[in-house]
Structures are given as C-alpha cells and as structure tokens.
C-alpha cells in the first residue's frame, strides 16, 4: 500500500523539479519531408537533454518565411531556432538579427561541412546558420522512355537536345508529358529554375550599376524557349506546378524529364514513394550558351535569432540536428536514401549511403561546382546562382515570376511580360535607392 502511494508521488516530485528547470525551445520549421523526420526523431534529443523541451511550429514555406521575417525584423522573440535558407542567412546576419555560430566544438567536426554550402550561410567570414540539407539542381529522366524512343543520354545535355527529346517522348494520350518544369510563380519556385535558364543563356538580372536587364535578348530567348517548351511538351496546368507538384507528377510516371532540385533524388529513388524508382536516370542540368550558373545552390539551415532567450539550448539543438550522428541516426531508422543530403563530406564517404544512393557523387559534384560568386557570363554586382542576395529580391523575384507565369498561360506575350517585369523591377530598384 505504502509503496504504491510513494511511487507516483516520487514521480510527480521528479517531474515538477524537472518542469521548473526545463527550458522551452520554440523551433520554427518548414513542412518538408526532411524536417518532418527531424521532428519525429527529436525525441532522442529530448531524452539526451531532459532540461530542454521542444515546441514545434511547422508551417508551409511561404507562410513560414513571412512569419519569421515579421518576428525577427520587429525583434519579436517568438522563436529560438529558425529554419532559413541560403537567401536569408547573409542578409539577416548583416542586420545583426542572427547569432554567429563560431567556435563549434571539435566533436561537431565543422571541417566536415561542405564548403560552398557553409559559405553560402556565412557573412563576413562567420557562419550564421548550419546547413540541415543542401541541394543543387539536375535533370531526372526516364530510362525506359529514352530507350523506347532510341535516345542516348549525353554527358552534358544541351537545352536544344532536351527539346528534341521532349518531342519524342511526349505522349499525352498516356498521361506522359515530355518534360516537367516549375511554373508556379514565386522567387523560390519558378524563378529559381528560370534564373538558371537565363544564366545559361548568357543573361543576368542586373548590370554592374544595378540596372535590370530583364528586357534583354538573353532573357527573351530563354523565356521564349521555356514557354514554348512547356506549352508544347509540358503537363497540363504547368503554371501551377512547383517543386512538390512536379515531384508528385514525376514519381507517378507522368513526366519524361524533369530539371529540378537534387534533393528530390532520394525520394524518387525510394520505391516506397516513387513508381519510377527502377527506371530513373540522372544527368547534369542542361546548358545553352554557357555552362555558368546552369545549376543552383540552396540549403535549408538552422539559425538562432538574436532575440532568442535560450541561445545556449538553441545551440545544443542546432548542432545536434546538423551533426554527423544525426545523419547516421536517420540512415539507420529511416533508410539511407532519406538522409538529409548535401551538408557533410562524411555522408558521401559513407558506404551505406553510397550503396543506397547511386546518385550520391553526382549530387556532391553539382553542389561543389555551383559557384554563387561567379554564376553569370557577364559580371554582376550580386552573389547567388538562382537568387540575387539583396532584400528586395523576394518581391522583385515574385513579381517577375508572376509575369513569366502570365506568359506561360498565354495571358501576355513574352515581350509584354518581360517589359512589364523590367518596368516593375526598375521601379523597385529606384525606390530602394540602387538606381539614382
């Protein structure tokens, strides 16, 4: 009897002292698969750190971004760990909104992090966010369809070849589009792809004096090509397809080719999630005039806002979620194709991963080759492959993205769309004081 009473009491006592000390970490993250896995596995972190409680705020990408920016810019202090991208990290760091993440412990093996990825998250030589997963872009294609049409994939496909192939494998009667590409407007959606296309056609966003060049010949060629390609051989409703929609289409066998993020490889190669796992081929992102900037560099990373009141605990969590140990844990529990890619050299030296992911070296090369500081044929005043690392780019990119989508649906001609985009961009740049 006595014992029976004593035990729960002891339990309550232990719990209450714990609760009194426990620090609550509010982690804001995006609802992508890799982060959903992180949320699921975080119980291991809580077990190892009984004094830290995790509170999750999981939101869709656009909502998350606006929510985090409002909070950090007004010093709201609602979050302790923020999931941000290569675009935000240097801009926010410059404004003093993020904690620098220097002097990482030896056990964390900071040297193992892939350099261009970490550089992209640094400002003034100091890292301000640690990469959770990183990606470049590449081409996926259906080996079976290529074989049937008698097409030989080349080491470095060109866009002209791609159009030719698309015409051969396009088969709308069987719900197979020749090629799927992003069409959903947004700086992180269609413009990520479109910018790499413009880069390889020799175009750029701005000249050295920040004058926009959207009405230039290179843009016109690239966009005309893109619009014609998708209208002739793209899936129905291409203008509302973003990364997720295309991933679903390709994995269900509705696309012959797809040029998009390397992070899709693990999902497409996983037979549980994809109907085309056994017929999947890879190639570098196609090029046109120049190979420069033909594939992008992006990472989702974890950062600690200066307004956090639990910075030490937040640092514990960030270094846990981006560690080698975490990657091994995902490999063991979720399967090695589900491992967050692109952040650590050790991932690519791991035999399990190499065995499970035949695309591994391919992805590593693409990431290491992408150079945000030299991504255009002509010189530019900005860094970034598929982004322009200035705060105004969110709105510029999204407005231009809308115009490109309008050209894609035929609501406007390509010329009209580009001249509207040029005008809107010039207005924004003038207002922000880049152009006097």
């Amino acid at each position, binding site marked *: 009897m006595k014992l029976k009473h004593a035990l729960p009491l002891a339990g309550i006592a232990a719990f209450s002292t714990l609760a009194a000390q426990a620090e609550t970490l509010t982690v804001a993250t995006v609802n992508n698969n890799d982060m959903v896995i992180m949320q699921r596995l975080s119980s291991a972190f809580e077990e190892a750190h009984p004094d830290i409680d995790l509170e999750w705020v999981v939101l869709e990408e656009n909502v998350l971004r606006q929510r985090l920016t*409002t909070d950090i810019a007004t010093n709201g202090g609602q*979050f302790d760990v923020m999931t941000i991208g290569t675009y935000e990290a240097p801009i926010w760091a410059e404004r003093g909104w993020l904690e620098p993440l220097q002097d990482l412990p030896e056990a964390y093996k900071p040297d193992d992090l892939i350099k261009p990825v970490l550089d992209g998250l640094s400002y003034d030589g100091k890292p301000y966010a640690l990469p959770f997963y990183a990606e470049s872009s590449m081409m996926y294609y259906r080996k079976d369809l290529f074989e049937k049409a008698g097409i030989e994939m080349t080491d470095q496909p060109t866009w002209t070849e791609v159009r030719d192939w698309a015409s051969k494998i396009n088969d709308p009667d069987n719900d197979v589009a020749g090629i799927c590409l992003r069409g959903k407007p947004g700086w992180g959606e269609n413009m990520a792809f479109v910018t790499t296309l413009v880069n390889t056609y020799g175009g750029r966003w701005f000249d050295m004096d920040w004058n926009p060049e959207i009405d230039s010949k290179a843009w016109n060629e690239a966009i005309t090509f893109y619009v014609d390609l998708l209208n002739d051989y793209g899936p129905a409703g291409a203008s509302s397809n973003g990364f997720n929609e295309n991933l679903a289409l390709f994995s269900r066998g509705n696309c012959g080719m797809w040029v998009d993020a390397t992070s899709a490889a693990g999902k497409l190669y996983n037979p549980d999630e994809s109907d085309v796992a056994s017929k999947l081929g890879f190639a570098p992102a196609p090029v046109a005039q120049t190979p420069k900037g033909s594939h992008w560099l992006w990472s989702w990373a974890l950062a600690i806002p200066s307004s956090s009141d639990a910075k030490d605990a937040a640092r514990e969590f960030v270094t846990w979620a981006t560690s080698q140990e975490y990657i091994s844990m995902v490999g063991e529990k979720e399967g090695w194709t589900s491992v967050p890619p692109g952040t650590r050299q050790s991932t690519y030296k791991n035999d399990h991963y190499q065995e499970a992911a035949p695309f591994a070296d391919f992805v590593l090369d693409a990431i290491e080759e992408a150079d945000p500081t030299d991504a255009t044929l002509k010189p530019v005043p900005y860094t970034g492959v598929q982004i322009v690392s200035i705060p105004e780019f969110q709105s510029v990119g999204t407005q231009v993205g809308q115009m490109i989508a309008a050209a894609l649906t035929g609501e406007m001609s390509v010329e009209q769309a580009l001249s509207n985009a040029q005008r809107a961009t010039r207005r924004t740049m003038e207002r922000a004081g880049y152009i006097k």
Partner: protein
Amino acid sequence: MTNPTVKRFAIGLLAWVIAFVIFFPIFWMVLTGFKTETEAVADPSLIFSPTLDSYAEVQQRADYFKFAWNSVVVAFGSTLLALIIAIPSAYSMSFLPTKRTKGTLLWMLSTKMLPPVGVLVPIYLLFRDTGLLDTKLGLTIVYTLMNLPIVVWMLYTFFKDLPKDILEAGRMDGASTFQEVWHLLLPLTVPGIASTGLLSVILSWNEAFWSLNLTSSQAAPLTAYIASFSSPEGLFWAKLSAASTMAIAPILVFGWLTQKQMVRGLTFGAVK
C-alpha cells in the same frame, strides 16, 4: 393538368441534386481523408478500403487536441466578450437613438473593410510590447474587436424590432435601465443574441490571418494547424484531407446542431 405528386417529386429531386452538388467538395474531402495517398490522386472512385493511416500520421506530426482547444477557447471567449460589450450599446442605439446613431453604426461597419494586413506591423509591435504575442488572451482580444461591429449591428436590428410599449411599461414602474435590460429585454432577445453569437463563433473559428501571424506554438488554433499540411513534399492529398476534416468537423457539427437557433434568431430580427 399538372399532377401535384409529380411536381413535388420533381422539386424534391432538383433540390436534392443541388444540395448534393454544393455539398460534394466537403463530402469528397472527408472521403479522401480515408484513402491512401495513391488512391487520393487516382481517378475518382467510391470503392476503396478505408484506412485511418492519414489520421494517424497527421496526429503524430501535430497534436490536434491542443490546436482544437485553442480554437474553442478563442472563438467562444471572444464571442462572449463581444456580446457583453455589444448588448448595452446596441440596446441604447435602438431604444434611445440620437442623430449620430446611424453614423456611428456605419462607421463601425466600415472599420471592418480595412484589409488586416495593412495594420499587421503596428499591431505586431503593440503585441510585442504588451507581451500578448502567442497568447490566447491576445487573440481573443483581436477577435472580439474584429467581430464587434457585426455583433453590434446585428443586435441593433434585432432590438429595433421589439415592441417599445413593454419597455414603456417597465419605466412607469420605475425600473432602472439595468433592470430593464436584464428582466425585460434579455428574455425577449435571447434568440437574436444566440444567432448573433453563433455567427461570431463561426467567424472567429475560421479567421486565418491574425491567428497565423500573432501566434506561434502556445496559442495556435486550427487555422495554423492547417497551414502545416497545406503543401508539403510528395503526395499529401489524403493527409491534407484528414487534417482539414478534423479542423472543420467541430464547427460543422456545431453549425448543424445550432442551425435551427440561428434561423429562429434571424427570423426574429434582421431579416423579418
């Protein structure tokens, strides 16, 4: 010539077809929640073996009950608060109107036409400084103020139609205004107050802008819950449908159960 039975049958058939078409998206969403992800994107079919997998996965990712509880507290709390503030004011506007009453009413309603995003930054700064960010209290206050104009206006139209002589009789007896309100007015206007309250609950439950922007983890209601399932990677229609079904189920059932009250209240006042 026209056979009344045939006519009635035709009317019934037409009404049922229309009812089915209008209800179909909701029906389809509920159905999709019980499918697997692959079935959800396949050609529409009514034949499949229902599974609770999507519900289980959705629940594993985010605790539905926490969000639902926040929704309940905020929706009912703000409605109660709005009614308490609005009843005296609507009362005085309808029984003791002045020249400015009309103007005040219209002005109140016009405050509702301002897109909330225009004042987000000022409100966010205000909430940060008063510590109301991510609190149920903060959200309740916003919803109260958000619905106050509609609540005042609806109550005003209900009260205006009440027979004035009852109150005159009360005055003769020397009843104070407070007693007037309490003993005479309230019983007469319960249906009107109830239907106004129901409308306010529904509007608060479904509000998605302030709830997303002013909460993070502690006070997030169901609209924030939906935002974490709206477009993730891979196939998500079944999960989205399951989450959506859970998010609207309480208010839908609530609406069905109280539909009679709502109608009775409305008949009484605004739309007689």
